[in-house]
Structures are given as structure tokens and as C-alpha cells.
């Protein structure tokens, strides 16, 4: 009885109540060009995604087709062509490796408007593998630790690609349900809403899952963009929100989003007990 009473008292005093509400989005929604693209120091096709904003929650992004896109440095230039299989996604026509010490300029021409952005790269770093732990209630695992969330000198974005479609018992499951892509961040800033961020969806995976862990180096500007994006997304909705505002951008002419360049280091681990 005592635990029940105590729990009730704690719940009454400390628990929040979150309810779904019907909150109309009152526009007009500005027609901003949205640019999402980070070039990396790996041999391959580099990609930039263009879209228009939507005026309701959960609406599919509206792809921007017919844009002319070019990435250039002082001594090279690459044209990007729209992926015929995915509208709004533009790929370099040839592979190239983005490198240190160069300034990459992105030019986009859409509907007679010219947009541009510049990006530079900071070096990547080797890193220690993430940690996982077993769930308390079942035989599955969860991510326990990826990296420190705070570093004034080496900000980074961490991409985890999890795949357990090959694990016995999951071979027949829809492969899209046996994969997950998670992002973590090491930023040079501390924010209250980061520390007291709202609860995040738990991702559980079986032993034998292969996790590819990638570290993306971030310039201070790129880190600031991601910080602001997180303030408006993953860190929003807790008890310590900050005043909402539009996420900053390095795009010109009223576009939004970010064009970045990152050095990527990676490793792959298999989840074992």
C-alpha cells in the first residue's frame, strides 16, 4: 500500500500531462526553398535535396524539380542532376571526394531565383564504439552511450545505421522494420532544453544487429544550425523549452536549410551479449 500511495503522491506532484490537441496551423506558409545537403570526404555521388515547405503537419515534403544545381570550388565544378527515381533529390553526375582546405560553393537556380551557400570542412576523428545494454524486460538491446553530448572543440553528428534483418527470427520480417537510422550529436554548446529534453522513442534491437556508426565532423556554423534544429525538434516539448524561432541557415536569398561539408569516420559493430 505504501508504495502505491507514494507513487501516487509523486505522480500527482511531478507528473505532467500531455494530450493531443487539434491545433490549426494558420498560415500563410512562406514558400521558402529548403536545401538539405552535406557533402562528405568519401568517394561517391554527393546529394542535395530540395523541397518546399508544407502547411500541415505530416504532409509529405513537396519536392522541387527542375532546379539547376552546381557545386564548385576554386578549381573544380560539379553539376547535379535530379534523381529520376526520387523527385527533388539531386546527385552529382560524377563521383568526387570533398576535402579539407577547400571552400565549396553551392549554386541553385529555381524559378528564376538564384540561391547560394558556402561550406568548409573540418577534420574527422577516430572514435570509440558506442555502447549498448540489454533491456530489463526482454531479450532485446538498446543504445546506451554514443558519445559525449558536449565538446567545445570537436563537435560532431553521429549517424547510427542499425540492421537486424539477417538475425535469425527476423529474416521473414519486412526488412524496413528491421532497420533503423538514429542521429546523435556532440555540440559545443549546452542548452537547458537539451539537458531536460523530452522522452525519446526507444529503439530495441536483437543480438546480432549490425550497427554502422558514422561520425560527421561539423564546423561551428554547421553545429549551430544543428543546435537550432534540435531546439525546434528533438529538444522541444519538454519542461524547459526556449523561445521558438526560425532555424538559421547558410543559404542566401531567403532559402532555408543547410549546405555542409563533413569528414566522415566510421566503424561497424555487431551487437553481442
Amino acid at each position, binding site marked *: 500500500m505504501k508504495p502505491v500511495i*507514494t*507513487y501516487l*503522491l*509523486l505522480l500527482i*506532484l*511531478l507528473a*505532467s*500531462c*500531455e494530450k*493531443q*490537441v*487539434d*491545433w490549426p496551423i*494558420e498560415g500563410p506558409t*512562406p514558400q*521558402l526553398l*529548403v536545401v*538539405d545537403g552535406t557533402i562528405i570526404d568519401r568517394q561517391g555521388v554527393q546529394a542535395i535535396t530540395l523541397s518546399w*515547405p*508544407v*502547411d*500541415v*503537419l*505530416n504532409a509529405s*515534403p513537396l519536392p522541387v524539380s527542375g532546379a539547376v544545381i552546381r557545386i564548385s570550388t576554386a578549381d573544380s565544378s560539379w553539376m547535379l542532376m535530379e534523381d529520376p527515381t526520387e523527385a527533388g533529390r539531386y546527385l552529382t553526375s560524377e563521383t568526387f571526394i570533398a576535402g579539407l582546405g577547400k571552400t565549396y560553393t553551392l549554386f541553385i537556380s529555381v524559378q528564376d531565383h538564384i540561391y547560394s551557400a558556402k561550406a568548409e570542412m573540418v577534420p574527422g576523428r577516430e572514435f570509440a564504439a558506442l555502447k549498448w545494454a540489454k533491456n530489463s524486460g526482454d531479450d532485446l538491446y538498446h543504445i546506451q552511450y554514443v558519445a*559525449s*553530448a*558536449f*565538446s567545445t*572543440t570537436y563537435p560532431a553528428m553521429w549517424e547510427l*545505421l542499425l540492421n537486424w534483418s539477417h538475425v535469425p527470427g527476423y529474416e521473414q520480417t519486412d526488412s*524496413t522494420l528491421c532497420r*533503423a*537510422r*538514429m*542521429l546523435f550529436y556532440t555540440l559545443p*554548446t*549546452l*542548452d*537547458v532544453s537539451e*539537458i531536460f529534453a*523530452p*522522452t*525519446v*522513442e*526507444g*529503439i530495441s534491437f536483437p543480438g546480432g544487429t549490425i550497427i554502422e556508426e558514422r561520425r560527421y565532423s561539423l564546423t561551428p556554423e554547421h553545429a549551430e544550425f544543428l543546435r537550432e*534544429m534540435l531546439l*525546434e*525538434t*528533438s529538444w522541444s*516539448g519538454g*519542461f*524547459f523549452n*526556449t*523561445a521558438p*524561432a*526560425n*532555424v538559421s541557415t547558410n543559404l542566401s536569398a531567403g532559402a*532555408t536549410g543547410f549546405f555542409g561539408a563533413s569528414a566522415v569516420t566510421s566503424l561497424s559493430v555487431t551487437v553481442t551479449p
Partner: protein
Amino acid sequence: MRLNLTSVKNSLLLSLFFLSTLAPQAQDLSKKITVEVRDRTLGETLTLISEQGDVLFSYNPLSIRSEMRVSVKAIQQPISQILDLLLVKNGIDYFLVENQVILRPRNNPQTLLEEHSATANFFTLSGFIKEKSSGEALIGASVHLRGTPLGTSTNGYGFYSLTLPRGNYRVTFSYLGYKEMEVEVDLNSTRVVEAELEESLIEAREVEIVALNPDSDLSNNQLSEFTFTKKILSRLPGFAGNLDIIRALQAIPGIQTFGDGSSRYYVRGGDAGENLMLIDEVPVYNPSHLFGFFSAFSPDAINDVQIFKGDFPVKYGGRLSSVIDIKAREGNLKRFGISGNLGPYATNLTVEGPIVKNRASFLISGRVSTLNWINNLVNTLPDVKFQFFDINAKINVKINNNNRLFFTFYSGQDDLSRITENTFRTYGIRWNNLAGTLRWNHLFNSKLFSNTTLNYSQYNYNLFISSNQDDYWISQISNTTLKSDLTWYLNPRNTLKGGVEITTHHSNPGNVTLTDPLSSQQAPAVAKYHSIEYNIYIGNEQTIGRKLTLRYGFRLPVWQDIGPTTLYYFNVNHQVSDTLQVANLEGYQTYFCLEPRFNIRYDIRSHMAVQFSYTRMTQFMQLLSNSTTPFTSLEVWAPAGPNILPQTADQFALGCFMKFLRPRLNLSAEVYYKYYRNHLDYKDHANLLYNPLIEGELRFGKAWSYGLELMLRKTEGRLTGWIGYTYSRAFVHTPEVNNGESYPASWDRPHDFSLNLAYTTYGHWAFSLNWFYLTGGAITTPVGFFYINNTSVPIYGEKNNDRLPDYHRLDLAVTYTFSKPTSRYQHSLTATLYNAYGHLNPFSVNFNKTLDANGEFVVPSDVGSDVTLYSTALSVAGIIPSINYLFRF
């Protein structure tokens, strides 16, 4: 025949006319009788009162017109109140002498003041007013000359001084909740009259709060001011059975709290950081526990709370919007006592008593949360630790009649942590306040009162970022003040107040301490601030004629920033343009400001007055926060300097006060307009927590607010309370925010209605309720969304383009007192319901959550899959019940 008129007159004067032939007996003017008379002679009416009340009247029929037609309706009222209505209003004084009620025409000292101000001999009547049972000072108690509008009230230490022409006076001392005391004073020399007022009994049968003298003027109704006495506070529902100052503030027109569980409050359009809260003159930077659920002050340690929303006396400065001046109890000078409050969330205990009877006393009050103890006991949430405590202590020493020392100590701390193996879920925060005051009251003479104070206040905020709590972020602010106030009751028409003050301020706007040497070496240092503030202030309260009162003065603060520090200069784009290392004690920025204060009051009638005031306030120490949370988050304070201009606010207020006698109600109406210069604002997504260039995140503009405040208040009788309504607006214009467009402040909530009622039965029961209704706060909601990394990111239009749903809440409390008022052991049970009908008042609306398998709203973490997002509203408090056992002996 020549009639010797003189002899007739003398004989009549000498031979009192006996209206009644009743044998002399003990006269009891507190006896309640019913008298209903309409247009009858005074003589007939007095006969009626004499018969019903068994009282004997004597008067000279040559000077008292007994044929005067009068009307009076009084049902079960004390005889004294009926006589007040019947006689005093008609220019007749009455005295109780030798078991007879003697009537005589009023000898109006006001007239004497006017007629003989140049020639009459004036003498000073002064002294302290105290509570009879404890010997504690009564702050703001009324001193009034019966039958006149003349009077004064005690200062913050219970002292009063009144200079009058030579004469006989009937002086009444009264204080809400206490029995009135009246003394006859033959003022033919300077006199000291100490008054000890007896508390009206708690027992329901006699619980009516004693009426203030109906003749007392409205001098206690100052513009933009509100006072909570201990008695009034004890009648409010509070939170979880605890008297709560912050929540009590919410009931006052012009003051709005953020909402449930919040200790943030906004006064007349000012931000939460523009409020000064003092306990025995020392500032407390975070007056809350558990993020704001509990007030930081132990209820048993509070004596009196004065709230200034504008029209600030010259002794107050440093904040733009309000001053909450809390006076701690001094401790019982006469006997030992213990009191306590046992509740499910917190428990407090107070011990007080004389160190030397009637000369020195002590009070120690402590409170501790019980949640953590219970949690440890049953291990419900083993990784979560939360607790708070506070200690109030006071020593009061009466050295002699002219010198008194007080020492006040306050300390409070909160700990909240969740330590787990999982880094994402590990955090810990701790904040603590430490404050101490040493005060010396000195009476140079009956006209000159001084108070010299040395105080220290410190506030620390720790954020632990490792599980063993040795890596942490910390911000600090502290100040040390030495000041001396003088009150000079110069003459009947002028009371001068002045003082000097010097304060040192130190602020650490947030630095990290890391155990890893490399990280520690690489962590940037955020420069600390050091400043010295000097203040000189002087003001005068001047009476002109019968109806006009002026209060004017100024405050002259001088602010100087000194080293050591690292100073950054910013260009127009807010980029660092230069850096300067400032040496220890080297001054690098000085501000001089002048803060004029002016108030004019005109008494239209004895129970109706209008006032106008103008006040300028300057704020040098700024709270930097762009949080939209209702809770106290990680506070950072920074002083005015080369990059932060001091904020100033000019406030104009016009008010009207009326006092109705039947029923006894006070009505006040005020309008105000405030204009802010150098108003503090922030760039979008300002980084304020750990940023060496924090000043580059700030933006400055202007702001303005205006409003109308109405309040109808009943302070006497079994049913007490008030109804308040405020219409107010608050706007901000910062050139570099919101595309240069003006926008409503987030605390702009136009309609604010509050109802507070307390009722005490004839039995053992007492009931109280609060009901609040406020327009929802202004918020910024998206006008669209875009996608980055398959994550939906909101797009915003104008700042604060939307509003939260309207806020409303009902709090209920019922108290059953077991004991009789005469019992030494007083005890009662109080049941409270916070938010009684469980209305959920959202404080944020979000567009980034999905439902997990357990039906909980969570932030999606798999960016590789498509999820459905929901718009959700977050609120904190449903119904919060509490049962508390209170005792005192």
C-alpha cells in the same frame, strides 16, 4: 432683569445633564445591540441605546444639539461602532470616563494645525505598536486620532511618530485581525506611548476580524501597493497546505503568475526578472522550491508582506516592475512556543521564544520536503532524488528603548537528480539561496528613526553533467550591502526619508568544472562580473491643507563595473571587434541615473481619494533567460556594462480608492502606463547557458504596457476576500527581432480575473477558495513545416502570433480547528485541493511527438522511417490534494 448668562452657562457645564438615571455600572462598549432609527432626534436615539446597552451618557446640552435629527441602522453591532456612526460622523467625540460615556464637540486638531501652525506648541507622540502575546512589532498598524482624519501608520519596525498641537487626544491603535486599543493622551509634552494589541481569537465564535476604525482615512491605501498581513495570508488556500506567497500574489490585480507549478510572476507588463523579492531587506534570487511548486519561505517565519507594483518608495530600487518586501517574524519575546505543519509533501517546524524575556528573542523555522524520504523508504523511483529544505532564523535584541538589533538568516536548497547508467538520462541540478542580514534600529529622538543594515545574499545554480556529480556547470550571483535609512518626522506636515547605500555585486554567468584535465583545459572560461553600486535617496511626504498630500523624492544610483574580467566589444553585427583584459579593481564602465518619484493624493472625502504617481526605476542587474518554461530554469545574471545598457522604466499611475462603511468594502481602481528603455531581448535561439560571448546574444529595444486594475475587497467580518479584474497589455519592439515589428510579450494576458474568499463559521470550521481566470499567454506557433534529414522542422511567422488556451483554476481549502482559542495547544487539520476541478492548463504546444507502443507521446528517434506526428499540449498539474496537520503551543 439682567440674566447672568455666564453663570447659567457655567452651571450647565458643571452640572452634566444625565440622560439616563441608571445607576452607574461597568460600561461595555463592545456589547452588541440592534438599533434601527430613522429621522429621530439624537436625544431619543441615545436613550434607546442607553436602554438596550445599559450604558450611561453624559453631555452638555448647550454644546451637543440633542434635537439633531439622525438615522442609524445597526444589527447586532458593538455599541462603540454604533456610536462611531452616530456621533463621530456628526462632529461629536465620546469618552468613557468613570463608567460614563461623555459626549463633547470635536476639537479638531486638523483645524488647530491650520489655525495655529505658526503659533501653537507642538509635541510628538511616538512609540512602537506590538502584538500583545509575543511582543513582535506590528507593521503598518494604524494610529489614528478619534474623530479626525489625522493619523499615521507604523513603519517596518512597528514605530510611529505623530507631531500635534498641545491638547487632549483620543488615540486609537488598530491592526487588521487585532482588537482596537484606545488611549486618552494629554499631549502637553513629548510623549512615548507603546501599544500592545491583542489578537482577535481564532475560535470561530469570536473570529470576526476586528474592524479598523471607520474614521481612519485611506492613508493605508497607497497607490499600486498591497499588503498581506500574517492574518490574511493564513486565510488563503496556499499550495499543498502551505501558505504560499507566490500563489497569493497571483490573486492581486496587476500580478500574473505563469501558471501551474510556477514561481515566475509578471507585474504590470514587466518580465519575471524585473521583480525584486526581499526578506528582511536582503534580496532572494530564486524564491521557489521544486522548480516553483513551493514558495521558498517557511510560512511560520513570515510576519508581513508588502507588494509594490509601482509608486515605489525612494528606498526601493534595482528592479523595474515590483518589490515584494517580506518581513520575517522576530520571535516571541514573552514565552517559548513551537509550531509546525505536517504534510505529505513537506513538513516544517518552528521554535521561538525569549532569550531574555521582553528584551531578546529568537526564532528558528525549518522545512524539509518529505518526498525523497518516502521515496527512499519504498524505493519507488530509485534513480531519482529530489528534496528541498529551507531554514529561517532570526534573533531580535532590544538593547534599550532607543536601540534594537536584528539578525536574520535564510538558507534554502533544492536537489533534483536522476543518476542512471544511461548517459542520456543522467542529470542533476541543485540551487541554493543563502542570505543574512544584521540590522540596527536606532531612535535618535522621538522624531528621528534610523535603520542601518548590513546584508549578504548568494544564489548558486549547479547543473551536474556526470553521474558522480563532479563535472558540472555553475552560475552564481552574490551581493553585499551596507545601508542606512533615516526617517525624520520633521513637523506635522513633513516626513523626510533618506538613506545611503553601497552594494558590491559579483556574478558568474555560467562556467563548467570538468574532472578530465584535457577537457578542462579546452573548456572556455566565461568572464565573471564585479560591480559596485552606490545609492543616495531622499524623499518627503508633505501634507498641504486638509486634503492634499504630496510624496516626492528621488533616488540616485551610480553603477560601476570593475575588474578583473575579460571584456568583449561587439560590432554592429554582434561579432567580437575587440577584447580587453581588465585588471583587478580597475573600473571600466560607470552609469549615473536619476530616478524621480512623485505622488499626489487628494482626499475628495474622508473615504474617497484619488492619487497620481510617476516613478522611474532603473535595473542594472539583468536576469538573462529566453526560456518559455513556467519553471525556474538555469538562471544567469549579468550586470549593466559596455554591452548591456541599464534598463529603465517610467511608470504613470492614476488611482481612486473608496471605502464603503455598510458593508465595509474597499474599492480601488487604477490605470497605469509603463514605458521601458533599453528593454532586454534576445536573438533567435540565443545561447545563454555557457557562452563566453553571452553579451553578443542580447538585443535591446523598447517596450510598453498599460492596464486597468479593479479590486473590491472586504477585510472585516467572517467573510473576507476580494474580487479583482485586470485588463492589461504588454508589447515589445526590438529592431533586430521579429523583423523589426512590435509583438506582444509572452506574458501579455489581457484579461485577468481573480476571486478570493475566506469564511469562518461560528463553529470550528474555516473555508477558503481562490478562483483565477486569465487569457492564455502569447506563444509562437508554426505557420508551416519543412524537412531536414527526414525530420519535420517548424517554420514561424510573426513572433507570439498565437495564444495558449485561457487559464482557469479553483483552489479550495477547509480547516477544522480542534482546540479552543484559549487553549495553550492549538491544532487543526487543513485539507486543500489545488486545481479542484482538475482543469489542465497547458504551458506549451508542440508539434514533434509521436505515439510509442505504450501510448505515450515521445520524440521519434528513427529518422529512417516515416512517423505520424501529433500536435500536443503539455500541462503540469491536475488535482493536487493535501491534508496537513498544523499545531502550535
